[in-house]
Structure formats: structure tokens, C-alpha cells
């Protein structure tokens, strides 16, 4: 490791604030992109799943009512 102690790693003889600022924003940008996509996908998938459940439910009810009419 180039730096002997963690303290030195943080300080990076004076340039630390710039380096960590740049890396911090990078991590932030990548995470925001990652999370935004993942959340939106989950939301869309649950919406689709819910739509199918409603459809299946209605299917269920139409079957029940047709059975009552026959019997």
C-alpha cells in the first residue's frame, strides 16, 4: 500500500479533500442511477402483478356467478 497509515490515506498529503470529493460524487451518481432504475423496475413489476391479480380475481367471480346461474 502506498500510504503507511489510514490517516495518511485520508489526508493524501493535502489533496485528500479533492480526491474524496470526486470519488464521493462518483459513488453518489452511480448509486442514484442504480437505485432509481431498480426502484422504478420494482414499482412497474408490482403494478403489473397487481393488474394480473385483479384480472384473475374478476375471472374468478365470473366463474362463480356462471356456476350459480347453472345450479
Amino acid at each position, binding site marked *: 500500500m502506498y500510504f503507511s497509515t489510514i490517516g495518511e490515506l485520508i489526508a493524501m498529503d493535502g489533496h485528500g479533500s*479533492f*480526491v474524496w470529493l470526486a470519488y464521493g460524487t462518483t459513488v453518489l451518481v452511480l448509486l442514484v442511477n442504480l437505485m432509481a432504475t431498480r426502484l*422504478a423496475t420494482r414499482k*412497474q413489476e408490482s403494478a403489473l402483478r397487481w*393488474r394480473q391479480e385483479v384480472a384473475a*380475481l374478476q375471472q*374468478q367471480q365470473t366463474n362463480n356467478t356462471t356456476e350459480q346461474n347453472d345450479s
Partner: protein
Amino acid sequence: MSGSVTASLKQLWHKLGSPRWFYQITRNWVRGFGVMAAVLLLVGCIWGLAFAPPDYQQGNSFRIMYVHVPAAMVSQSLYLGMGVAGFIGLVWRMKLADVAIAATLPLGISLTALALFSGSVWGRPTWGSWWEWDGRTVSTLVMLFLYLGIYALREAIAEADLRARAAALVSLVGTVNIPVIKYSVEWWNTLHQPASFTLTEKPAMPAEMWLPLLVMVLGFYCFAGHNVLSRMRLEILRREANTRWVAELFAAKSVPASITKES
């Protein structure tokens, strides 16, 4: 042999037309890119931050290069990708082309902004100023505006098909202009001040300096692959929401017993 290759390529081309096939195929691509991106970025960061030797002139602030250069490179290739998608979209009217443009935009804009920001943070200790009118910085800024232009255009048109074709045309026109703008800015810049420190003269750097850079660049490309593909899959789910194959994909396994008892 070449007959079968062109046949399979043609088949691939037709398959690209159907979002369903694309949705299924990219499932493990997305996962693969995601894992590779995580590994490469982690290794690259640790290597670049802690193990790479500092630059004899700039000291440790050069470590920002491991973030700045990949962001700039990937944002440019994303813009080029949008240009290609635009061309395909305009000529063959493929739905996937517009899905690709819509999926690449957010990541492209954020990476270009990141490249500009990290560049100026890097410039501060090295050149003593937050913003340098260097050829590359200005052309990256112009690319950001080209990105925003496409984004604004997509927001302004409601009708899907027209929005797709308009965005395709603008990204194509933009891609043709990127080299022109880049060259004229470089020409104008060298007129005013000598070409300042060039960021990516790979051969001049010792191996232990540019190896982490290579890892980071690959990591960024894998992340872009992961992000763009998953956004495309999301976009496909949105656009194909009421098709049969999506319905089957999310069909309720079995109607929960509790509901049937009450009805």
C-alpha cells in the same frame, strides 16, 4: 460457413425487432454486467486510491483521473451509441432503438456532468482554477447541452412514434457534429493557450498507474451496460404492459384462497 453466419445475423436482426426476445435474452446479461461492474469498480477504486504511486508533478490529486477519464469516455460512447440507435430507429423504424435512446439518456447526462465536475475538482489543485477553457472541457460541456437538447425534445413531444423519430434524428445530427465541435474547440483552444496537460497519454504513464485506469474504465463500461440494459427492460415493461407475453410473465400464480372465500 459464411452463408450460415449471415443467415444467423439476419435472424438476429429480425429478432431484435421483438422486445419480448430482447427482454428474455438480456436477463442474464444484466446480471453478468452487474457483477462484473461491482468487482471491477471495487478493485479499481482500491487499487487507484491506495496502491497506485502518486504523480511526481501533481501528487495525489491525479487519482481523480481514475474517475474522471472513465466517466468522460463512457459518456461519449453512450452518446455515440444513441447516434447509432437513432440511425437504426430512423431507417428501420425499430421500437428497440427508441427504447435504447430513452434508456441511455439519464446515465449519459449524469456521467457527462460527473466528468465535468470531477474534471474541475481535479483542475483545482493541478491548474489552480475550477474551470479551464481547455478543448476537451468545452466539448464535453457542449455534449452535455446536446444531451439536454434530446432530453428536452423528448419531453416536448407527447405522441410516442413522433417523439421516437424526432429524438432519433436529433441524436444522429448531434453525433455527426460531435467530432466537428471537438475539433473546432481544440483548434480554437490551441490558438489561445498552449495545449495544457493532456489527461490520457497512456504510454507515458508507468504501468502501475494506468493499469488501475484500465480496470476502472472496464468497470464503468460494465456499469453502463448493466444500467442501460436494465433501463431498457424497464422501458419495455412500460411500453408492452398490456401485451399477452407480459401478462403471462406476471400472471398471478394462484388466486390467494382468502379472497375467493369471501366472494
